[in-house]
């Protein structure tokens, strides 16, 4: 495994731009023990993420797309220090923040925030909404007087489209979309620079989804926030992201600016993913031809050597099954990990 990881680092570095990034993940790998022998020692591993490297420039949005089980949420959680990566490093604004102690980590906790998918289970049902939003302010001592605290909470609520009069209500009195606004207000409270949005709009209705996406965009423009936008919905990712990475079974298979990836769709998996995504309005002249993938996503427990997509790929050759493909450049700012591209 180490050998493969090393080769990954090397060819990955070919295209990593050196300086203009804000957050950088370098070969992030997360293996969870899957089965243990009778002494509790793991005998097989779930490869949730394998050598995931990317960097996000300041004030931009990096979209992460992939199906369930591809490791996109694991990456988000590693960035937020909720998982300790098996290997790999995370750089924040030029500093290595992997494996910091709780105390050293604290200033970064203020600067990095997370919004979860489910607005129903991620809010404390026994706290007033105002207190939920203000908790970060108190935690980091960001306001000195009571007045200032109240004003700041109200301001956050207004910015996120909530009414300050509702600060004394409880989360259950709000609808799903409003709760997601509360989650976003809570994340914004500590003046973060970087926010991980883990399927932040997936649980919402279409008409509400649009409201939340617009809210996120407005807040980003206002204070040049950097987002990592994790989602399985390609249409919505396209709306919010500047760059995108496509993941399959724990690995990045394609990456580039949103425009290039969307126009070219180099990797066979990306092609299938785009073609499977329903489009609206329907293409005139009947139903479109679909690339239908055979079978299901493989289990991430001890994945095969070679290209992980080979089993479902219509172009797979013998070589694909034996050797892991290297990164190749499709065009400016667009890279793909597939043998089809020399």
């Amino acid at each position, binding site marked *: 495994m180490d050998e493969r990881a090393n080769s990954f680092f090397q060819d990955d570095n070919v295209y990593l731009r050196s300086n203009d990034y804000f957050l950088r993940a370098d070969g992030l790998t997360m293996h969870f023990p899957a089965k243990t022998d009778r002494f509790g020692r793991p005998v097989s591993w779930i490869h949730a993420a394998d050598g995931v490297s990317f960097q996000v420039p300041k004030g931009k949005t990096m979209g992460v797309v992939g199906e369930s089980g591809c490791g996109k949420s694991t990456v988000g959680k590693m960035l937020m220090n909720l998982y300790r990566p098996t290997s790999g490093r995370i750089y924040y604004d030029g500093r290595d923040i992997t494996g910091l102690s709780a105390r050293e980590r604290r200033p970064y906790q203020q600067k990095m925030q997370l919004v979860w998918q489910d607005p129903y289970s991620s809010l404390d049902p026994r706290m007033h909404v105002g207190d939920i939003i203000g908790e970060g302010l108190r935690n980091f001592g960001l306001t000195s007087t009571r007045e200032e605290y109240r004003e700041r909470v109200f301001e956050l609520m207004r910015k996120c489209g909530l009414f300050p009069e509702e600060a004394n209500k409880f989360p259950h009195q709000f609808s799903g979309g409003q709760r997601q606004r509360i989650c976003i207000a809570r994340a914004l409270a500590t003046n973060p620079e970087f926010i991980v949005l883990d399927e932040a709009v997936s649980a919402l209705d*279409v008409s509400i989804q649009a409201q939340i996406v617009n809210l996120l965009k407005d807040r980003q423009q206002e204070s040049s926030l950097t987002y990592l936008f994790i989602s399985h919905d390609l*249409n919505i990712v396209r709306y919010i992201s500047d760059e995108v990475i496509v993941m399959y079974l724990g690995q990045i298979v394609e990456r580039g600016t949103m425009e290039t990836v969307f126009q070219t769709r180099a990797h066979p998996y990306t092609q299938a993913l785009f073609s499977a995504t329903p*489009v609206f309005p329907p293409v005139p002249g009947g139903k479109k031809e679909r690339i239908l993938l055979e079978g299901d996503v493989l289990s991430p427990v001890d994945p095969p050597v070679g290209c992980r997509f080979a089993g479902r790929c219509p172009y797979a050759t013998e070589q694909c099954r034996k050797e892991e493909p290297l990164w190749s450049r499709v065009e400016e700012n667009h890279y793909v990990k597939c043998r089809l591209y020399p």
Partner: protein
Amino acid sequence: MERSPLLQVEDLSVDFRIDRKTTLHAVQDVSFSVYPGETLGILGESGCGKSVTCMSILRLHSERATRYPRGKILFEGGDLLTMPEKELREIRGGKIGMIFQEPMTSLNPLFTVGEQLMEMLRVHSERIEKRDAYERCLEAVRKVRIPNPERILASYPFTLSGGMLQRVMIAMAMLNRPRLLICDEPTTALDVTIQAQVLDLMNRLKEESGTAIIFVTHDLGVISEMSDRVMVMYGGRKCEEGKAEEVFTAPAHPYTRGLIASYPNPEHFQQRLPMIPGSVPSLWDLPAGCPFNNRCPYASAACLERFPAAERPSEGREVLCHEWKKVMSDG
């Protein structure tokens, strides 16, 4: 369209009794028909009553808490709403099949897939031999293109993936060759590549068997690909109905219009997504008049007072909006 409808729902209203004083009006005065061999899509956001409508067709709501104050559901000459339970049981899973959103929770974890499929046959035709039943199940599972069908029939539901289980559910619903298949968000819990497989399969089965489908979803993309006709619902009411193409190219109801505009359309990329202000009203406090009036840019005095009557802008098209002429002329 002069064919006679397979299923005819007239002024269906569904009330849920919460306690002695409170009654929720989950669905009010919804009428629609389904013709043989067509797919009717029901589109709407959460809480709009689309699932309640579907469940009512087979009367799957708890008998104690549910009232059907008005309406009829006519299927092959009988009214499903007043039919005795015993007769209805023949229809459920027989002439009308149903597929639910979560395949993981719709199968019994204690029995193998094969046992559950066979039960479906034996319930509806008591005389069938076990061997014949097995053969028919095997064939049904083959039809939904499950690789290695013998192994699947022998395995327990929790050992299969979501996409595989949804195929099993489709196979099960198709076993008794139903005339109508009700699908309540059948692909919402699945990944897009698996969703594409399942949708493709459903279209193929429909062509082969001529079964009519009621397809419920909140996803505009999915519904526009699947349906021949569409019905849009909001706040327990019907908004509009018509051929899918017509409804989506020239929506007559402001809600449909807003919904279409706020769907992220990758081809016409724009900086900001157009949105419908406000949020879906809860059934507890629906506004008087048209339920959409507090979010509607066209709302007039009439909209605040009473719910509009159905009007027909063109053949096979129906809209329930006071201001539909204005909406349509806005292009």
